[in-house]
């Protein structure tokens, strides 16, 4: 719908005349008034709950005191950002955050696309439904619950992994004191937890592909793999790019819910798993300073925003049809 309207205004009114543009906008409003009316509640919601609160960003630049409020607190400029960059660990923490998130985004997307294709290629209706539900289910388990399973897997004494290793005659591995394994473990968990749910969007896209295309490919003698390679995947590309752009926005935000639940406060695993959010939690344990936390949160969002713009402009060059704006 969005694409349509843009092209409509483009055709009818030349873009380079500002007056024409405004008139065009009004005409557009009148023309599609019911559609806009439909969108209005969502727009109001976003304005109230996503745009208005942004004013609160100012506390990141203040020595915020709850009783004095935003208006009365002292303005301190960039002081709240300083402490993070003064800590010698910030490079390691930022690297961990970005590294883990890149891994998560890449492998989750791959797994989700794979699942979506496999499910749609499956024949049996019942099996398909059940398989799909089973894969989506983990998404609804909270990380705290997952963390308990994980412990049963990775414990040194009596953990599932080590039992298998012992059965095979291999030496036990102390997973809970070896940081090196954890990016892998976390990625596996993330796939198990989210890929099934993430595949829904891709499945919807695939089911939206015109079956005529597949039919004519079959007539031309295309094999199943060829159809996937030359029809499904190229048509999934815009969706993949779109969802990746959205995911990149959060690349500076460590998944606190997941990492804190699973790693908890095991310092032996910090070298590979300490992300901005868990670090901040530790640093703020006693202080609980809103301004300093807000400063780091603001920085994370800002970097995310810049990254979204960057990735989007790359996408615009590489695959113009899948860029968001």
């Amino acid at each position, binding site marked *: 719908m969005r694409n349509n309207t843009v092209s409509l205004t483009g055709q009818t009114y030349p873009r380079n005349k500002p007056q024409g543009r405004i008139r065009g906008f009004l005409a557009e409003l009148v023309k599609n008034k019911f559609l806009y009316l439909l969108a209005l509640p969502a727009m109001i919601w976003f304005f109230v709950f996503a745009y208005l609160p942004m004013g609160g960003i100012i506390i990141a630049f203040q020595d915020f*005191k*709850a*009783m*004095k*409020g935003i208006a009365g607190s002292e303005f301190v400029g960039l*002081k709240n950002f*300083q*402490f993070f960059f*003064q*800590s*010698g*660990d910030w490079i390691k923490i930022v690297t961990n955050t970005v590294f883990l998130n890149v891994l998560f985004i890449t492998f989750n997307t791959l797994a989700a696309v794979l699942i979506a294709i496999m499910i749609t290629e499956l024949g049996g209706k019942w099996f398909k439904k059940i398989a799909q539900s089973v894969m989506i289910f983990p998404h609804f388990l909270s990380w705290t619950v997952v963390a308990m399973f994980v*412990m049963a897997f990775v*414990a*040194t*004494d*009596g953990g599932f992994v080590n039992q298998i290793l012992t059965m095979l005659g291999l030496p036990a591995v*102390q997973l*809970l*004191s070896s940081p090196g394994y954890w990016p892998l473990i976390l990625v596996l968990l993330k796939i198990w937890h989210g890929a099934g749910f993430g595949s829904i969007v891709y499945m919807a896209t695939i089911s939206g592909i015109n079956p005529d295309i597949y039919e004519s490919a079959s007539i031309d003698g295309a094999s199943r793999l060829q159809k996937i390679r030359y029809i499904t995947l190229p048509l999934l590309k815009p969706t993949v790019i779109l969802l990746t752009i959205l995911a990149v926005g959060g690349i500076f935000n460590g998944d606190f819910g997941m990492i804190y639940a699973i790693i*908890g*406060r*095991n*310092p*032996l695993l*910090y070298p590979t798993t300490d992300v901005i959010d868990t*670090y901040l939690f*530790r*640093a*703020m*344990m*006693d*202080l*609980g*300073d*809103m301004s*300093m936390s807000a400063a780091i949160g603001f920085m994370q969002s800002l970097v995310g925003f810049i990254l979204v713009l960057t990735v989007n402009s790359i996408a615009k060059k590489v695959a113009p049809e899948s860029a968001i704006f």
Partner: protein
Amino acid sequence: MKTKQLVLTALSVTMAAALTACGNGNETVSPASGNNAATAGQPPKAVTLKGMLFGDAPKDLPRVLEEFEKQTKDTLNTKLEIQWNPVSDHKQKVKLMMAAGEEVDFVFDADFQNLRELIPQGAYAQLDKYFNNDEYPGLKAAFSSEFVDMNKRYDDHLYTIPFTQYFYDIPVVYIRKDLREKLGFSEPIASYDELQQFYDKVLESEQGVTPLAVKGNGGFQEMFAPDRKELDHVRPLNLGGIIYYVHLSDDLKQVQDVVAFGDPETEWAKLPEPFSTMKSAFTQYDEWAEWSKYLEKDVLSQKDQKAYFMSGKAASYYGTMSSYAADKKMLQQTLAGADLEFFVFKEHIRNMEPEAISTNYKANNSIAIPVSSKNIDRTMKFFDWMFASRENHDLFEYGIPGVHWEAVGDTQFKLLEGSENYVFPGYEFTWNPTMIRTPADLDETAKQYLEYSAKPDTYYAAVLAKFSFDTSTVKGEFANVQSKADPFIQTLKAGQVKNWEAEAAALNKELKNLGLDTIRGEIKSQVQAYLDAGGQ
């Protein structure tokens, strides 16, 4: 004016109480001329006090409140409306609520919540005048003047209604009694040596059982802490995970040095024995490293040592005295034939010596009253009522007698069937050292230790006990030092650091880059200012 009003209220309360007996239905509404105005003989104007606590609301709370309202309709004429926040949200909610100026009459707040931040900002009302005041006899009786004094903070005023039962929850090692007997130890464990023998035996003959379960981020905690006489002029301060020793002059008037954990030996040499070297100041660290063989291999990931123990995987666990009755019951229910006992590892406490425990008499938990409340007097009247008699107090702490619990003598109680529907978090609302009841079925030893920890002369206030550090000028340094030190301290506590002196020195160098010396300077000047102002 104010005093007159108070006298009037007090009079009216007594009168009303007398009148209730006559069953005199009084319909007229008293003219409201002030927020707690009431003419003699009539109940005060009806008021609903709004409060914020955290946790789950007890299922039968409405019943208890109904009973409370029935009992006090003609005296307090007060209704309570408590909002129960999720534990994890309470801190933020209180802060936001204060920022938004929402009206609440009492909130749970404590040092681990927002107290240290909100008091200096003027969020809470000063409550000094309600204590040791004959208008509030209940509060006067339940809160001794020492207790009130020691809970004053910031500008030496009282901003909280402090709740505690004991000033110290005795740390113990809980032991599987059945296992001890099975392994051939006929007498209860009475020393570290015997404990070690027991643990060795467990390792030797009980495959898959961890001798000692501790929490990953707590480790050995108080175990092996030197049991020595404390020095008045060398005081430890634990700030942001690091221990600083503040060295005072002999007359306790001047700060001489502040030595931090990991400082070079030349610094430590400035302190008197036994603090003159790190090795002798922290004798426990070597023991911890040695005893780490009794912990589970993944100890640093252990989030719930009690659950681990309860599942039968450990022979003992680190805990505190106060949970004994509940834990014993839990163990007996989960493992058939298992039984629980405890070993008090601190010698002075084990022998129940007087003045064995240093305390600052500060309650960890408390209620504060926002200055914005329009019902401060009425709220305090409510608490005065609650602490006026055991009967009133127990209604909130244990529920309705005969339904939820039953009194056994003056100081004990028995839970009834219905008790599951009324589990009230007393530490948020009702606890008081003068109103403790212990479970009637508790064994004698446990009762003795609880009585011991309830006795005032068990405790003494150490020098600098009341001092509290204000982080506001060194926030950045504090945050960085804490996050850097925390992983090391945690591994140390779990006994995972063998060569701790060298590693502490290395950590200390890193902390200096992060502002350790700035914090040290701030400690020095704040302690000096505290002493200059007559603090002890």
